């Protein structure tokens, strides 16, 4: 029982992000194919190391083409609804960028400064991006969590994590 006044009379226009995703899948397929052609044929093998990658890259190209057609017909992807998300809110990419930046910086500093300070930086950047503004509390919790994790995993479970500045202290 569709209401004729709200029923779409023509197809919605293709959305640019969806088109870009389809082109991205095609590009991935193309790159895979190019990479596949660089694999030498195996010696003494009926099906060499090339056969399966060829199937995968051809499949990716076909699927990318199908996605492109579907995007051109106006199909749009629905962003996922997760436990803590609000689907009615507009997306804000700044917190995500902050988390990614904090993570990469923390990863780069993991060896020189050590695991505790590196992951504390990651922890604090996620906390800040998720809206925690009590900075002394956030930094305190970040250092505590990082330190506890370090001690439990190195002492309790025998993993080796880089000590960095804390070398010799712990």
């Amino acid at each position, binding site marked *: 029982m569709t209401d004729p006044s709200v029923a779409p009379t023509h197809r919605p226009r293709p959305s640019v992000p969806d088109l870009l995703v389809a082109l991205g899948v095609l590009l991935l397929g193309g790159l895979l194919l190019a990479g596949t052609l660089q694999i030498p044929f195996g010696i003494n093998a*009926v099906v060499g190391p090339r056969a399966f990658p060829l199937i995968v890259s051809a499949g990716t190209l076909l699927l990318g083409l199908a996605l492109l057609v579907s995007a051109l017909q106006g199909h749009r992807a629905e962003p*996922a609804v*997760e436990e803590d998300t609000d689907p009615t809110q507009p997306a804000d990419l700044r917190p995500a960028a902050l988390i990614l930046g904090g993570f990469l910086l*923390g990863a780069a500093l993991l060896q020189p400064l050590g695991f505790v300070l590196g992951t504390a930086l990651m922890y604090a950047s996620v*906390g800040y991006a*998720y809206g925690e503004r009590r900075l002394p509390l956030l930094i305190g919790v970040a250092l505590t969590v990082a330190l506890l994790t370090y001690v439990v995993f190195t002492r309790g479970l*025998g993993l080796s994590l880089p000590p960095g500045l804390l070398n010799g202290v712990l």
Partner: protein
Amino acid sequence: MEALSSLLTGFETALTPMNLLWALVGVTLGTLVGVLPGIGPALTVALLLPVTAKLPPVSAFIMFAGIYYGGMFGGSTTSILLNTPGESSSIITALEGNRMARKGRAAAALATAAIGSFVAGTIGTILLTFAAPAIANVAVQIPPSAKFALILLAFVTISATFGSSPLRGLISLFFGLAIGLVGTDLQSGQARFTLGVPELLDGIDFVTVVIGLFAVGETLYVASRLRKGGANVIKLAGNARMNREDWRRSWKPWLRGTALGFPFGAVPAGGAEIPTFLSYTLERKLSKHPEEFGKGAIEGVAGPEAANNASAAGVLVPLLTLGLPTSATAAMLLAAFQGYGLQPGPLLFVTNSDLVWGLIASLYIGNVMLLALNLPLAPVWARLLLIPRPFLYAAILVFSTVGVYSLNNSVFDLYLLALFGLIGYGMRRFDFPVTPAIIGVILGPAAESQFRTAVQASSGDFTVFLRQPLSAFLLVAVLAALVVPQLFKARARRLAAQGAGTDETKRA
């Protein structure tokens, strides 16, 4: 009764004090992490992999068994009290259970979910005990061409049932297959897709892919669309418990849910979503109170939760007997097996029978422990939902970092983790299911190896897949698997939507 005597030996392994302790640690960690929003059972296993790094295999798998079932139990708490399903198989629990909770019946909803999960888990484990050795006996004789067709069947059923469309599922699968190609080809020693980076010669570790796509992707995605004003958690007073009327209305749905869930898990038909929808539809048809559905009918929690847990037990049948994971969590268990140099499959019952039976015995034990942990401690788990989101997601990211870094002690893996996190963000934004990619990464190399072995054994004759009767049959099943779930799903969704729809109109 060979299975029974093997099972008894298994209990001897599982009932040692140390292994009981690992089982308890497993169910507790599994429930704990399962309750936390944003973390499903697959990610729970992935995050906890480093914890088991120094354990002997038997203890590690006993712990994984606890984590596996514990994650399932924990998920229902989140669905009922927070109205937010972590996985598609919890949609119904969130729908009916949260309505019950809002009517002040949270305790009964949690209890019917926990006891139903226990009943379903136990019956499912009994079925597994007797089905698995029988299937393993047959599976030894499956030729490579049929094994390849079987993997193909798993690929297609998983891609077609997870997520909104088979096309998006298949793209996700092929992305996973492509990741699985990176590294040195085991049969020819040829480096593939390594872009000259030495770190890639060993391939990309599945743990990095799983944690990146699930945990980091989730952290980035939720950050971009965070719900303002915190979560709306329903208060729970006292233990999870049911009255006489609740019991009377619950026990049949538990059994029917189990009967639906187990076969769907066991026949590589793509996870727990379909049986939970079917169970919900069935209970609504059979109920004397169909008008309560969509408003908090206890049958609508009891049946689907039982179906969900029974399918979790069913999933272990193809995993242990064929080495074929049909859910993301099972794929993680398979990968954990491989990490110990073990290949699940029919031979595992012969070569590592103490491990397999210790694992199966610990499933019974874990189920009892979970019931004991969940009924009286429900208020404690409910508290976990109140952890402020900034601290929760920050901790998830730090544990992800430990898990990935400790694989190879390599910072390069952390950059890969960030890359997969970014891709995981994109997959959520553009509605690609993550599970097929995971299955592709883990099963892709196996698919390639069976494919090449089959073609080589027939001296390059590609028609071997059509001439070998079992593989031809399976290929027909692959075609059916692309079509049939869509019909089921459309029907189940329509009925579920009708339930919610009639409720909306009545309230209006």
